[in-house]
């Protein structure tokens, strides 16, 4: 018997994933510098990146006056054309997937876990407050208008938030013909699961199977991540900020700077909070990687600029957390200390994070010298630190009641940082780290 939910979605779902995959493969071919990825990891990674490239292209096509359906078709055809012209380079990147029995077992266990979570994800529509206040309404608004109509989006909360999630959902609605937010949630689940699988594939490539299994399940056992993957918060953008930062970190750590930077720049397209993360990583890369400066300016202009210029020219209220005029005098130091303690307390919430932050802290403090010496780790850790400091500043200056604001936001803001921090931690514990970074190896050779 066919499951009714799958029957309803028909071909729309696989077609959409195929569009993301083709565009993602082309983008990968454009930015990848070297690769030891297996075919399987390459496909996962391309699909993941493709979602961001397609949604940003949809927005750009919308600015040019194209409706959603013709825009999607053009993006798909352009992706196909680029794929075909670069097919030799793309096929060269593919390596056969060699796996041991134990690795296969890890994949089976992970697959079963994701299947269970998938059933949970599609057992309900989007229902958390943020979803019904603005994420799902924006999906419906874009689907009804057929393009990005900012005046329409101003009817909902946070019109300044970028449109990665709304465009994913709206495209699913477009292909299905009605606003089925259960299907949209299924799409979000698949994309987020792909992010987790990329981490799994990467870990298995760099660690012995038992260590890899430990890191993968540590990431999977962060309760808050599962809540955003399949539970209450599925249908919001926070998990994508965390996972894009993580995949970006993985690519940078293995020396694919351009691909990593592209992932980080897309954080600003996923959620406004990602802008600082993206900007700090880009600035640090600009500082420490002179050879990438021209690339950084180009990629930044292409990925960061469109939405941020658009909302400012359309007079969208961008002061989401505070307005300078609304800041009132308060005991600043105590407020800042309270915000720091909020994160201190959050990081040791074992029921939410297991020991994810502990392993990160332990990795950093037991490899302190290497953290400063290896450029990849240095850039990533300072970016994470900048983002964390930015959240502490926001919690300090917010005009909202501080304790309630922190209680409502601290877990999901920590989710932006946690996966990337875990990626760095695993790297610090790996053999690659002992051998030195790719940058050092390149210089030495």
């Amino acid at each position, binding site marked *: 018997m066919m*499951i*009714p*939910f799958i029957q*309803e979605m028909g071909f729309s779902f696989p077609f959409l994933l195929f569009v993301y995959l083709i565009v993602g493969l082309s983008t990968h071919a454009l930015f990848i510098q070297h690769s030891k990825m297996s075919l399987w990891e390459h496909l996962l990674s391309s699909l993941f990146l493709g979602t961001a490239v397609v949604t940003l292209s949809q927005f750009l096509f919308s600015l040019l006056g194209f409706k959603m359906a013709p825009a999607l078709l053009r993006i798909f055809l352009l992706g196909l054309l680029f794929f075909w012209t670069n097919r030799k380079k793309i096929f060269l990147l593919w390596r056969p997937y060699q796996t041991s029995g134990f690795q296969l077992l890890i994949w089976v266990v992970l697959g079963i*876990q994701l299947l*269970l*979570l998938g*059933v*949970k994800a*599609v*057992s*309900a*529509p989007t*229902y958390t407050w943020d979803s*019904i*206040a603005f994420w*799902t*309404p924006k999906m*419906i*608004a874009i689907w*009804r*208008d057929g393009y990005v109509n900012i005046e*329409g989006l101003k*009817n*909902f909360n946070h019109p300044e938030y970028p449109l990665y999630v709304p465009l994913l959902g709206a495209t699913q609605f477009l292909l299905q013909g009605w*606003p*089925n*937010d*259960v*299907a949209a949630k299924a799409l979000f689940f698949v994309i987020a699961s792909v992010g987790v699988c990329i981490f799994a594939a990467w870990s298995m490539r760099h660690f012995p199977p038992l260590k890899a299994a*430990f890191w993968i*399940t*540590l990431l*999977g*056992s962060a*309760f808050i991540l*599962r809540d955003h993957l399949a539970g209450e918060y599925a249908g919001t953008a926070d998990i994508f900020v965390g996972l894009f930062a993580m995949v970006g970190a993985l690519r940078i750590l293995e020396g694919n700077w351009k691909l990593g930077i592209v992932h980080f720049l897309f954080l600003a397209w996923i959620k406004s909070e990602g802008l600082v993360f993206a900007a700090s990583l880009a600035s640090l890369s600009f500082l420490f990687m002179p050879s990438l400066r021209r690339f950084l300016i180009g990629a930044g202009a292409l990925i960061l600029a469109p939405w941020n210029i658009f909302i400012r020219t359309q007079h969208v209220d961008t002061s989401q957390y505070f307005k300078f005029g609304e800041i009132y005098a308060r005991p600043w130091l105590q407020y800042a200390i309270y915000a720091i303690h909020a994160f*201190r307390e959050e*990081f*040791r919430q*074992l029921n939410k994070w*297991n*020991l994810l932050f*502990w*392993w990160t*802290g*332990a990795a950093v*403090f*037991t490899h*302190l010298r290497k953290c400063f010496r290896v450029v990849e780790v240095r850039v990533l850790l300072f970016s994470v630190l900048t983002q964390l400091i930015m959240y502490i500043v926001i919690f300090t200056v917010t005009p909202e009641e501080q304790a309630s604001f922190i209680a409502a936001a601290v877990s999901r803001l920590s989710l932006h940082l946690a996966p990337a921090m875990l990626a760095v931690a695993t790297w610090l514990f790996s053999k690659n780290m002992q051998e030195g970074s790719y940058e050092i190896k390149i210089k030495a050779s």
Partner: protein
Amino acid sequence: MHKIAALLPLLGWFYFSIVGLALGSAFFKKKYSFFVKMLWIPFICISCVGIVQINYFEILNLPKILPTLKDASTSKIDHYVGSYRTQYLQDFFSVIQQRNIHYVSLLDVDSRELHYARMYLYPAIVNSIPSQEKLPKEHKFVIVGLEKSEWIVAGRLLKVSQGKALLEMEGE
């Protein structure tokens, strides 16, 4: 001294163990490296307990979730959203689309219903008004509960759906 003592509960085993491991790895690198390695074991065990625990919770949750596989999306949405999808997306939206209505007022609703109405009636702009207030000039269309008989009598009935009515009121 008492300030240092106050750090103990503040940082707890979570942060102190990191400091201990960092010092251990820095000072006892070669001779005692085996003992330093042993220090990691409790934390591997704690992580593994957490991993088992969380998967156990997910498995406990399965009997509730698995039966939903047989349901269609609409019934899942209705289960969570209640009657709003049928009322606003299907019944009222068709009238709003036909008559090209731009503004709709909702009488005396909670913010959850207001969010769903805004979402499902888009592109119409939806606002909530308290029961006593008069309609703004441009808002001729109002959705009220059928029990508000004074509104039903005063306006022209356009559509009724599951205990709510879409009315066209006289302009000011």
